[in-house]
Each structure stands twice: as structure tokens, then as C-alpha cells.
């Protein structure tokens, strides 16, 4: 499982770098889907098969389809790619890269001097145990998550209305 972990980790990092450097939105979305699928393989190799399935179904399936719907509705084409070419210059990467490198050094220092690490056995924790924990210990969290989803639904509906109905309402 270690080899699987490292191969998919390299794929994840490379495709994430491609996501933040592409100019065409659809290419970036495809790389993001590859990144999420590789992340699902990582979860599987870490012994979390239920979460790996959820990653494929919800992230790579549902959320990415939402992005693709919006890109299709906006009808972005060559014009958008040329605009990105004007906006995204290589020298703009320098400042954020330095900040992120400092953050990474700090994080590595904190992780490697923290001392509470150790090997991951990779023993699978299946859907049954996750379900028992979810609906027993974290039942209140499930209720709050349902309220959050309801608020997101209502908010998206309100924001997504067309301008015509807004003018009629006011």
C-alpha cells in the first residue's frame, strides 16, 4: 500500500499544480478531477474505503459537474483564455510562492518536532464503523449539517433567480 500511496501522492501534487497554472477553465477542471480521483486512491490506501467512495461520488461526481454546468452556462471561449493570458503572468507567482514556502517550512517544523507521529497501519475502517460513529456520537453534527445544506439550497435559489423576477419583486 505504500507504493500506491506515493504514486497517487505524486499524481495529486502534479495535477494540482496543473490546476492552478492552466489558462483554459475546462482543462483546469479536468486536472482537478484527476487530482480528486488520485486523492480517493490515497484514502483507499490509508484504510478509509468509505471516504474514498464518497470522494469519487460527491467531489468528482457532483461538485465538478456543478462547475462544468456553470462553465457551460457562461459560454466562455477563446476570449476568456486570452484574458487569462493577460492576467496570469509568471512573475505574479513569485510572491505567493514565497509565502506558501514559508508556511510549508513552518508546518514541517511543527510536524517533525511535535513528536506524536508514527506509522499508519492502514487497517481498514469500514462504512459500518463510520456509520455507527456518525449516527451515535456525532448525531448533533449530522443535524447541523442538514441545516447547513438547507441554508445553502435556499441561498443558491435566491441568488440564482433571474433579474426579471427580481425587478418584479421590488
Amino acid at each position, binding site marked *: 500500500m505504500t507504493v500506491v500511496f506515493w504514486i497517487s501522492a505524486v499524481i495529486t501534487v502534479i495535477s494540482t499544480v496543473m490546476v492552478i497554472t492552466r489558462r483554459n477553465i475546462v482543462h*483546469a477542471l479536468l486536472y482537478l478531477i484527476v487530482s480528486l480521483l488520485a486523492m480517493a486512491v490515497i484514502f483507499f490506501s*490509508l484504510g478509509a474505503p468509505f471516504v474514498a467512495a464518497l470522494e469519487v461520488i460527491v*467531489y468528482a461526481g457532483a461538485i465538478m459537474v456543478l462547475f462544468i454546468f456553470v462553465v457551460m452556462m457562461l459560454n466562455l471561449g477563446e476570449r476568456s483564455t486570452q484574458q487569462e493570458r493577460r492576467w496570469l503572468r509568471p512573475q505574479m507567482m513569485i510572491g505567493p510562492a514565497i509565502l506558501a514556502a514559508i508556511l*510549508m517550512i513552518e508546518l514541517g517544523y511543527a510536524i517533525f518536532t511535535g513528536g506524536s507521529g508514527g506509522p*499508519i497501519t492502514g487497517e481498514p*475502517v469500514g462504512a459500518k464503523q463510520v456509520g455507527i460513529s456518525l449516527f451515535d456520537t*456525532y448525531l448533533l453534527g449530522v443535524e447541523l449539517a442538514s441545516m*447547513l445544506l438547507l441554508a445553502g439550497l435556499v441561498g443558491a435559489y435566491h*441568488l440564482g433567480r433571474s433579474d426579471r423576477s427580481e425587478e418584479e419583486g421590488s
Partner: protein
Amino acid sequence: MASVSMEQGLILAGVLFALGLIGVLVRRNIIFILMSIEIMLNASGLAFVVAGSHQGAADGQVMFIFILTMAAAEVAVGLALVLQLYHRFKTLDVDAASRMRG
């Protein structure tokens, strides 16, 4: 069998989070900013799952499910905002929305 250590998993989560942060800081297109936020949320979920499977407990996976829920709600509202922004300003530049006039 040599296994993955917890530090290595957390470093991978940190690298992905930093890449998402670079994406948020560099990009001006609002769809790319939303995608970078998804990357950052996914990286934090990876950190939870790594910690959970290190202890052999299901709590990390439960936290990942909550993060997944939050990401779904956030992206629904965010993409509705993207559509509104495009209808108002005919561009995806986030700087176009810097003047809020109600």
C-alpha cells in the same frame, strides 16, 4: 511491509493546502478561486483522514464527511454568486465587484 507514517501524510496535506493558497492568491478569475478553495478544503479533509487512520478510529472519516457537506453547500452558493457576477458585470474578474453599491 514499510508503511506510510503520519508525518508524510500530513506533509502531503500541507503541500496541497499551500498549492490551493497560491491559487487563491494568484488568480483573478473567480471560478479558479473557487476551485482553489475546493483544493484547500480537500487537503484539510486529507489531514483529518490521516489522523483518524493513524489512531484506527472512525472520527477522522466522520469529520471528512462534514467537510464534504460544507464544501457542497459552499460551492452551490459560490457558483450562484458567479452567475450573478457575470450577469451584472459581463466578466469573471473579481476586481469588478470591488465597489459594492447595494
